C-alpha cells in the first residue's frame, strides 16, 4: 500500500525568501510524527504543503500514491475527498474560528462537503459532546478562552473524522491544564488508524505525542529518530535552536552547558 | 455624517437605496471576478478594520479630535469597488448593531460615504499620485488630498440630500416633515464641520497610513489582487493610465468652469418652449437672434403638443429652491457629470456580465 505521504526533495519560498529547501520524508498510515523545530524552521510551511494549501515550486508530494498538485485539487471529487480525509489545525485559533458561533464553526466542514442537514446536526452534536464543549454551542468565538478556542478548533476538524491530522503547535499559548487535555487527546489516537503529524518546539510533550521525530532546521530535515534518540542528543537540539546554553554558576564554578529550563533536574553533558 | 432614520423621506430613501444597490451589485461582481474565493475573507476583515478605524479619535490641531471613515485607505489598498463593499459592510454593522446611522437611510449613507467617497478618493489619489515612485512623498500628499476631498464630497452629497427635504416634503401648513433645513442652511452647516475637522482627520489618517505602508508593507500600497487597478481599464500600460488621468483633470476643469454659461445672454437658438413663443419679451429676443425674422405668430402644432410632455427636474439648470444661479449651475453640472460617470461605470460592469454569443469562425 502506498505511503500516506511521500515527500521528495521539495522546495518552497515565501516571496523570494526560501522556507523549505530540498526536504524529503515519508510518513506511513497510523504514524504519530513530531516535526521538531524552532520558529522559522519551516514546520508550519511544511504542514501547509502537506494540506495542499501551498504547492512546492520543486519536487513532489504524493498522498496515498496520488500526486498533490494544484490541478488535482481543482477536480471536485478529489478536492472533497482530500479535504475530508486530511485536516489541519492552525496555530492561531482565531484564524480557524471564523464562523459566528461554535455550532456554526463545527458545522462548517460538513456543510461545505455537502452533507445533508440531519447528518450535519447529529454529527455536530456528537462532536461537541466528545470534546466536552456542548455548553459552548451558541457562544461567539470572541467570548471563548484560549483553551476553549483550541477545543473548538479541534472539534471543527474532528467532526469530519479525518484520517490525517496535521497539528500546528497545538499546545502553544495554552495553560498547563489545557495543554495536558490536548496531549491526552493525541495520545488517544495511539494505535489507531489515524496519522497524526504535530509540529512543535516544546520538547516536553514530544515523547507523549509521537513515535517518530523529524528535526527541522532552516527548511530541511537534519535528523530523524525516536523521541528518546532525538531528545538525548543535545548537540542536535542545540544546533536546531531547540535548547539553549548560557553561562551560570554551580558551586563557585562558572560554566556553560546546554539545558532546558522547566525540567526538575539539569541534564549535564560532560 | 451618518444620517439617522427620520431625516430623509421614504422616497428619498428608496431612490438612494436603489443607487446603492446598483453600486453594491457592480462592486460584488467586480470583486468576485478579480479575487474569486479570496474575496470573502479579505473584504470581511478589511471591513472590520474600517469599522475599528472609524472608532479612532484622531487628534487635530487645536486640541480637538475628529473621526475618519477610512475611505481614503480603503480606496488606495482595495481600489474603488472593494472599498465600496468594505465601507458599506462597516456602515451596515454600525447602523444595525451599534445604532450609528439609520436603517431606512443605510442606502443613503452607503451611497454618500462608500460609493461617492470611494470613487472620489480613488480618482483624486490616482490623479495626484500619477506614476510617482511608491515610496515618494507625492503619494503621501496624494493620499491626504484624496481623503480630504472624498470626505467633503460625501458631506456635500449628504448636505444636498438633507437640504432638499423641506422643499419637497412638507405638510400643507408648510411644516417640513423630515430634515427641516433648506439647502442654504444645510450645506454650510455640514460643510463647515467637514472642511475643518472630519476632512482633516481623514487626511491625517490616509497620509499617515500611506507613510507607514511605505516603510513597513510596500506590497499593500501597490494594491491587493489587482483590485486597485484603474476601474475602466485593465491596462498596466502607463501611457494609457496617463491619458485617462488627463481626461479626469479635463472633466474636473470643465465642471468648475460651467458657471461661465450664465454669462451667455438670452436663450439658446432653437431651444424654445411654447411659453417662449407666446411671451412678447422673448419673441423680441428670438427675432433679434434670427437676423430680425419674426417667429411664427402662433405656436406650431408639434411644439404645442410636445412642449409640456416632460418637465425637467432642474428647469433652467437651477433647482427652484437654489437662490444663487451660479451655484445652481455648478450643482447641476456636478449632478449631471456624476450621474453620467456612474451610469457609464455601471453599464460597463453590466456589459461585461452580459452573455455574449460567440461568433462562428
Amino acid at each position: 500500500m502506498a505511503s500516506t505521504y511521500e515527500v521528495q526533495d521539495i522546495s518552497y519560498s515565501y516571496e523570494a525568501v526560501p522556507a523549505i529547501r530540498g526536504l524529503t520524508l515519508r510518513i506511513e498510515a497510523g504514524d504519530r510524527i513530531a516535526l521538531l523545530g524552532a520558529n522559522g524552521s519551516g514546520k508550519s510551511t511544511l504542514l501547509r504543503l502537506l494540506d495542499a494549501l501551498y504547492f512546492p515550486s520543486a519536487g513532489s508530494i504524493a498522498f496515498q500514491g496520488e500526486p498533490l498538485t494544484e490541478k488535482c485539487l481543482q477536480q471536485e471529487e478529489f478536492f472533497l475527498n482530500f479535504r475530508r480525509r486530511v485536516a489541519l489545525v492552525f496555530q492561531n485559533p482565531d484564524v480557524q474560528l471564523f464562523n459566528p458561533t461554535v455550532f456554526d464553526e463545527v458545522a462548517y466542514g460538513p456543510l461545505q462537503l455537502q452533507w445533508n442537514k440531519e447528518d450535519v446536526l447529529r454529527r455536530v452534536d456528537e462532536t461537541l459532546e466528545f470534546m466536552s464543549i456542548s455548553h459552548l454551542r451558541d457562544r461567539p468565538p470572541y467570548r471563548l478562552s484560549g483553551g476553549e478556542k483550541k477545543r473548538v478548533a479541534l472539534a471543527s476538524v474532528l467532526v469530519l473524522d479525518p484520517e490525517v491530522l496535521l497539528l500546528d503547535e497545538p499546545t502553544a499559548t495554552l495553560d498547563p491544564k489545557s495543554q495536558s487535555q490536548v496531549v491526552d487527546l493525541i495520545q488517544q489516537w495511539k494505535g489507531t488508524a489515524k496519522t497524526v503529524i504535530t509540529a512543535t518546539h516544546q520538547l516536553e510533550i514530544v515523547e507523549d505525542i509521537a513515535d517518530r521525530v523529524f528535526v527541522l532546521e532552516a527548511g530541511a530535515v537534519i535528523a530523524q529518530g525516536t523521541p528518546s534518540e532525538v531528545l538525548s542528543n543535545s548537540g542536535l537540539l542545540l544546533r536546531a535552536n531547540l535548547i539553549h546554553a548560557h553561562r551560570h554558576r554551580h558551586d563557585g564554578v562558572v560554566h556553560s552547558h546546554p539545558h532546558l529550563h522547566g525540567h526538575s533536574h539539569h541534564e549535564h553533558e560532560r | 455624517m451618518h444620517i439617522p432614520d427620520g431625516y430623509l423621506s421614504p422616497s428619498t430613501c428608496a431612490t438612494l437605496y436603489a443607487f446603492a444597490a446598483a453600486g453594491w451589485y457592480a462592486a460584488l461582481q467586480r470583486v468576485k471576478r478579480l479575487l474569486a474565493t479570496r474575496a470573502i475573507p479579505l473584504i470581511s476583515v478589511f471591513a472590520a478594520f474600517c469599522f475599528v478605524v472609524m472608532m479612532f479619535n484622531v487628534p487635530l490641531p487645536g486640541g480637538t479630535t475628529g473621526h475618519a471613515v477610512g475611505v481614503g485607505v480603503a480606496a488606495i489598498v482595495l481600489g474603488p469597488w472593494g472599498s465600496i463593499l468594505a465601507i458599506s459592510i462597516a456602515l451596515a454593522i454600525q447602523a444595525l448593531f451599534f445604532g450609528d446611522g439609520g436603517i431606512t437611510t443605510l442606502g443613503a449613507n452607503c451611497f454618500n460615504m462608500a460609493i461617492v467617497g470611494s470613487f472620489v478618493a480613488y480618482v483624486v489619489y490616482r490623479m495626484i499620485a500619477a506614476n510617482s515612485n511608491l515610496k515618494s512623498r507625492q503619494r503621501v500628499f496624494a493620499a491626504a488630498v484624496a481623503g480630504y476631498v472624498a470626505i467633503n464630497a460625501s458631506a456635500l452629497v449628504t448636505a444636498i440630500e438633507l437640504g432638499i427635504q423641506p422643499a419637497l416634503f412638507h405638510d400643507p401648513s408648510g411644516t417640513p416633515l423630515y430634515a427641516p433645513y433648506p439647502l442654504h442652511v444645510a450645506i454650510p452647516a455640514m460643510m463647515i464641520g467637514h472642511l475643518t475637522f472630519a476632512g482633516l482627520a481623514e487626511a491625517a489618517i490616509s497620509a499617515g497610513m500611506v507613510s507607514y505602508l511605505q516603510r513597513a508593507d510596500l506590497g499593500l500600497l501597490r494594491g491587493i489582487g489587482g483590485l486597485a487597478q484603474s476601474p475602466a481599464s485593465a491596462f498596466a500600460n502607463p501611457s494609457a493610465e496617463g491619458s485617462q488621468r488627463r481626461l479626469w483633470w479635463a472633466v474636473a476643469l470643465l465642471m468648475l468652469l460651467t458657471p461661465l454659461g450664465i454669462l451667455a445672454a438670452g436663450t439658446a437658438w432653437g431651444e424654445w418652449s411654447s411659453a417662449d413663443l407666446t411671451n412678447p419679451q422673448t419673441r423680441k429676443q428670438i427675432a433679434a437672434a434670427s437676423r430680425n425674422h419674426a417667429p411664427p405668430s402662433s405656436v406650431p402644432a408639434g411644439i404645442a403638443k410636445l412642449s409640456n410632455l416632460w418637465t425637467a427636474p432642474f428647469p433652467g439648470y437651477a433647482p427652484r429652491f437654489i437662490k444663487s444661479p451660479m451655484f445652481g449651475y455648478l450643482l447641476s453640472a456636478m449632478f449631471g457629470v456624476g450621474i453620467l460617470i456612474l451610469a457609464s461605470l455601471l453599464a460597463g460592469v453590466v456589459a461585461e456580465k452580459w452573455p455574449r454569443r460567440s461568433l462562428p469562425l
Partner: protein
Amino acid sequence: MSRHPFLERTLRGFTRAVSTALASEHAATQPGLLQQLDPRVRVIGILALVLSVVLCRRIAAVAALLLIAIAIAAASRVSIASLAKRVWLVVLGFSGVIALPALFLIPGRPLFAVPALHLSISVQGVRTAVMLVLRVETTATLTTVLVLSTAWIHILKALRSLHLPAEIVTMLAMTHRYVFLLIETANQMFESRQSRTVGVLSGPAQRKMAARTAGVLLSKSVELSHEVYLAMLSRGFRGEVRLLTGFRFRVRDYASLTVFIITSCLVVWIGR
C-alpha cells in the same frame, strides 16, 4: 490622566462597543416577547414598524408608534432605564440639538416671541422639531430592541431567508466576528503605547501615533485575512457559501407577524 484625550476617548469607545455586544448577548437569552418569536418575524415586524415611522405624516401617529416600541421593549425584558441611557439621551443630545434651531428658523405662524433674541418660535418650527426628534427616538428604540433581543447571527440568517445574497450575509457575519478581535488588538496597542509614553506628546506626534497604530492594524488585518482564507480552504471552501438556517414557523409566529403588519399599515393609514 488626561494627557492624551484622544487615546482615552478611543479606548472608551472600544469598551462601549464590547459592552454593547455583551448586553445584546445577555438580553437575547431573556424570556421576553420578542425572544419567543422566530427571528424572521422579529426582523420583518420591526422593519415594518420602522418603515411606518418614516411613512407617517402626523405627530400623533409617530408618538403612538413610540409607545408601541416602548411596550415591545418592556415586554421583551429590555430595561427602560438602560434604553433611556443608551438610546433616548443620546438621540436627544444629537438630533435634539440639531432640531433646536428649527424652532426659530422655520417660517410660519408665530407661536411666541423671545424678545431678548429678536426671534420668534413658529408653530411649524415646533411641529417639525418634535416630529424629527420623535421619529429618530422611535426608530432608534425599535432597532435597539431588535438587536438586544436577537443574536447577530440570527438577524443575519433571517435576512438570508429573506433572500439577501449568501455572500453578503457571510461577509456581515465574518466582519462582525473579527471586529471584536481587531478592537482587542487595537486596544492592546493603544494601551501599551500609552504606558510607554512619558510626558505629553505634541499634536503631530499624537497624529503619528494614531496613524501608525492604524497602519499596524491594517497590516495585521490583511495578514489575518490571508490566514483565514487558508483556514477556509482547508475546511473545504470552494467559493460557494452554505448556511444552515433551521428556522421554523409556529402559530404564534404567524399571529405576531400578522399583528405587526396590520399595526404598521393601520398607523400609516391613520397618520397619512
